[in-house]
């Protein structure tokens, strides 16, 4: 492909939450900034911009990714999913989201989008996780409010519900 010049903006096309989108970016534009300021998808948060905190975690082609460590131009042609995709309909919550709400698994909510996206991505591929598995996945995120225990509890509860073995069957089709 031709070199994308640093000096100008370039159009990047990808699928975002199932919808084809394009955004104009410089080669150096981080995916976080392209999503938030280029496309107005502000649910993905910026916490550290060096890949440690996990607040910006999104799914790229079905795998977890730190959006702050991803160039927007590198997402060309990819299938991106962000926290805005999780609710089955406006005003409703998916299984994972509802479990977070029940368990008080969030306070300020700033880290939450990233954790939801990690868990959503993980649970799609690992429907029978152990507490330790989920703790390790959540261990890739920093939360400063909750002390993590309710997040682990919510994740376990959501996993059970998605398997159809929980007391909260509503919205069971959506992670």
């Amino acid at each position, binding site marked *: *492909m031709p070199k994308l010049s640093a000096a100008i903006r370039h159009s990047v096309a990808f699928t975002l939450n199932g919808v084809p989108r394009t955004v104009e970016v410089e080669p150096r534009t981080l995916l976080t900034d392209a999503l938030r300021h280029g496309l107005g998808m502000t649910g993905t948060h910026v916490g550290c911009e060096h890949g440690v905190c996990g607040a910006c975690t999104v799914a790229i082609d079905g*795998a977890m990714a730190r959006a702050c*460590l991803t160039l927007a131009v590198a997402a060309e042609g990819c299938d991106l999913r962000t926290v805005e995709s999780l609710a089955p309909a406006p005003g409703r919550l998916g299984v994972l989201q509802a479990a977070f709400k029940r368990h008080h698994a969030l306070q300020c909510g700033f880290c939450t989008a990233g954790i939801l996206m990690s868990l959503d991505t993980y649970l799609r591929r690992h429907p029978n996780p152990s507490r330790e598995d989920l703790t390790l996945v959540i261990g890739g995120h920093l939360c400063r409010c909750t002390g993590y225990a309710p997040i682990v509890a919510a994740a376990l509860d959501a996993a059970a519900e998605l398997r159809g073995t929980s007391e909260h069957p509503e919205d069971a089709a959506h992670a």
Partner: protein
Amino acid sequence: MKPAAFDYIRAAHLDEALAALQASGGDARILAGGQSLMPMLNMRLTRPAVLVDIMRLGALAEPRIEKGALVVPAGVRQAALLDRATLVDEAPLLALALPWVGHAQTRARGTPCGSVAHADPSAETPLCLLALEGEVRLRSKKRARAVKAADFFTGMMVTAKAEDEMVEAIALPLRRPGTGYGFAEVARRHGDYAIVACAAVVDGRGIRLAVGGVADRPTARDLPLLDGSALDDALNALAWDLGAGEDVHATARYRRDLVRHLGRQVIEEAMRCRN
């Protein structure tokens, strides 16, 4: 905390990537998983003129077995390697070490070759490559060459790779019969860079112990089959030889303590699983 400006090339062919490296006069960097490079770009610790994205190169996407080695090309992500069902038979040491590399979120993007190219002295993959006496396959527009791991890591984030070369693959010798492997590390938190990481390979002839996080590069030492106080002495000599330093996480003394402790632990582990 935004990167300085650079041009970007998403290479469609390996030749395109190599040509870009050559054309840049040393001012280009390969972008693979980005888990080491991107933080440095964001912090502006490094500011290349050109980034060459190699993640769309089909030729680099799949691990393969080749002449007694597991060859991991530059486009293979850590998570993909960890998910490889046969990894534990092919390269058991790597199977032990990979879960310690960052977190699931970074392994989903990061590449073993990128870790080797970055050459952080605490990183697990370079340590395993060195312990296994693997090699780094380098390619430039002009030539391809293989460098032994022991010769590849030359300092803190400094390697034998020339500026017009890229790490095309790493090659890890396959598991050998009668050989045992051990890996252990101590970090402040799970997923952190190791304060000290040790990997051992033990066979009928001797012990190869590699240590990361202490010297300015991973360092390996070949020892005869020792135990008891002779092993203590050998580990103590190694601990002192590595010239441990201090940082906010650990003292030099602590690092030496860990070399002695983890060194013995991984050697014993390797001996156990050899039998």
